């Protein structure tokens, strides 16, 4: 009711009274907000994937008794613009759930100055900064913050495992110079040392440089056995081209951000035979296959690209939590319902329309479900962080191929062994 009043009031205020009161009780619409960098090349697919999840839920009859409308706003990767968009979604559209943002530098001010004060649940697909964990430990997030991007710890530990398994004696690290990359570089250096691999150098890669020759030369100087890359596809392509042209080794370990067709095609498969990548894993269940199949049907390509599976899971979990919290729930109630849909003891549900329908039935009877998503059996800890099973993959002619799967227990055991 509240929502509809806000909508009607707004429409009037904007001089567009025709829009008000159009929604009848039967086919009501609940709005959720999304603030994502749609004006950036890799941001748009993340938004598309979120909308895809919303469409699937609507095909299952919507969440909490209503159809879901995702109101999407662009952040332009500008904190001012992102915070303003979030504030407008919360105040003007009355959303109780906010998806986003991607950059931690945008998500953080949204969290501290919009969602926490307003009591709105915020679920990010891709913000990786360790600052969120600290904030949650201080209790400043009011338990409204979640992210489906597994902590960088899993990635770096798996990177170290690959180096160890391949018998590399020394590794140079090249990282994207942002909060994610800086975290990755710090963690991977520590993890590599822990498994006895020498780190010959860590070099920052700034975005959008025409050439990375200086950086690559610096990394080459240590004459490493292998290269570790925590980069995005555009910079990753330039860096690897220069690296190879200067005679660098083809032994590479890459983080999940390079699991992209763009990178594979632009560098060329003939140079990528010795590349091993890490990622958080798809679960050993039908749901992951269902996601891949459904994604392929919708977009005509494999879901390869930074944050796509995470974005899908963020949206699905948010909507499942809305369903579990029931109609007219506020942000805190929805956030509190997240454990009911990610319960390890709950009934497993796949990530698609049928799965959502199934979850609806179980939740209506007061049961709990275990959402099996595109990134695995997502489980949040007290700080809203996820850990996940991991996979080690390699590039092939037409995509990527899985080499090794590590269950959540394997991952935890390996990380414990590093300490």
């Amino acid at each position, binding site marked *: 009711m509240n929502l509809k009043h806000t909508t009607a009031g707004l429409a009037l205020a904007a001089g567009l009274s025709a829009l008000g009161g159009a929604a009848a009780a039967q086919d009501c619409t609940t709005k959720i907000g999304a603030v994502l960098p*749609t004006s950036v090349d890799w941001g748009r697919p993340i938004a598309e994937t979120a909308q895809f999840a919303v469409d699937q839920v609507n095909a299952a009859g919507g969440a909490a008794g209503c159809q879901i409308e995702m109101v999407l706003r662009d952040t332009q990767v500008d904190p001012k613009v992102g915070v303003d968009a979030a504030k407008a979604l919360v105040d003007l559209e009355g959303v109780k759930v906010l998806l986003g943002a991607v950059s931690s530098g945008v998500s953080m001010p949204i969290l501290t100055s919009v969602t926490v004060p307003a009591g709105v649940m915020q679920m990010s697909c891709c913000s990786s900064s360790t600052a969120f964990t600290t904030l949650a430990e201080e209790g400043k997030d009011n338990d409204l913050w979640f992210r489906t991007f597994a902590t960088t710890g899993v990635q770096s530990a798996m990177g170290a495992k690959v180096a160890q398994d391949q018998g590399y004696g020394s590794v140079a690290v090249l990282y994207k110079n942002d909060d994610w990359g800086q975290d990755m570089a710090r963690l991977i250096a520590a993890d590599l040392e822990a498994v006895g691999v020498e780190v010959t150098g860590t070099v920052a890669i700034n975005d959008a440089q025409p050439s990375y020759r200086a950086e690559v030369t610096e990394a080459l100087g240590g004459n490493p056995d292998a290269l570790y890359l925590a980069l995005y596809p555009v910079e990753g392509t330039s860096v690897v081209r220069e690296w190879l042209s200067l005679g660098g080794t083809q032994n590479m370990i890459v983080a999940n951000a390079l699991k992209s067709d763009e990178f594979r095609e632009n560098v060329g498969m003939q140079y990528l035979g010795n590349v091993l990548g890490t990622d958080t894993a798809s679960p050993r269940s039908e749901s992951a296959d269902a996601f891949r199949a459904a994604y392929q049907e919708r977009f005509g390509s494999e879901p390869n690209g930074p944050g796509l599976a995470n974005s899908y899971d963020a949206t699905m979990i948010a909507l499942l939590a809305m369903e579990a919290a029931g109609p007219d729930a506020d942000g805190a109630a929805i956030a509190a319902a997240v454990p009911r849909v990610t319960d390890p003891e709950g009934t497993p549900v796949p990530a698609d329309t049928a799965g959502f329908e199934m979850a609806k039935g179980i939740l209506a009877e007061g049961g709990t479900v275990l959402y099996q998503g595109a990134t695995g059996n997502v489980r949040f800890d007290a700080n809203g962080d996820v850990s996940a099973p991991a996979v080690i993959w390699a590039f092939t002619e037409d995509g990527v191929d899985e080499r090794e799967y590590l269950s959540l227990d394997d991952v935890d055991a390996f990380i414990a062994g590093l300490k």
Partner: protein
Amino acid sequence: MIGLISYLVFFTTVASILAIAVMGLNLHWGFTGLFNGGVVASFGAGAYATLILGGTPQAGHLGGYGWPWPLALAGGLVAAGVLAWIVGVLTLRLRRDYLAIATFGVAVTFENVMRNAQGLAGGAQGVRGFERPLQDVIGTGLSYNVFFLAVTLAALILTYVVLERLVRSPFGRLLRAIREDEEAARALGKSPTRVRLTSFVFGSVVIGLAGGLYGTFYAFVSPQDVLPILTFQIWAMLIVGGAGNNRGAVAGTFLIWGAWTASGWALARFAPVEAQLYTGSVQFILIGLVIVGMLLWRPEGLFPERLAPASKTADDRGKLEPGSVT
């Protein structure tokens, strides 16, 4: 309705903060003719210093001195001023586009230092852990935003009054004289270098004030806040509003920032679902068109500079003109 009020309070706060920065730039460009391409450096210095001085202790980087907010904010102004003085001494001999390139470089350097110096300001993660002043008394909701809006408006009015007095004073006339013809001003026995430096530092302190308020309002600042886009936005606001007119500077800020946010809102609301993904790009085009249109059809801005009334100027001139003495 409460949502609309809440949003308008928020919008006005952000716009007012930006308006202060635009007035600072107006002192540089509008009154003194200094082509400052590094607005974000002053803005960032104000924001970073305020948060570092006034924040709670954070592992891994400088800061957490927990100074009372007015002192921390003053520290932000000092930081912006000191930075501007150093930059000014080094670069103000440059003219027009050369000065713009040099100051732009300073701003990019500032962003890169903040991004990489993890021990200084948290690197790419930025500075957080700042307790907004009086938040525990007022609470975090709408009431706090109303309180902070009052603080911001007070700062905006204060800045406006001080700058208006300044530019109407003899010093203000000197600024305009240097802007129009530096040689002539020198011939009258003035020292353009010193006056330019004074104007540069003072304008930068004003921009630093905006940065300090911005950091306080979001309780967070990161290198993403000091990207060159902010310089561009502030320039757009000044050009549209009218360089050389403080009222224009404020109006231009509200107009451009309003257009920036409203276009995003309107596109999200009314564009067809298939087009939703492209609204971000469409928005950039729209904003660009507004600025190009302004430059083509009203290059002096919405509120062109108004020189002092003719009679008063005539009086002043009457006293000074050699002819009248004889």
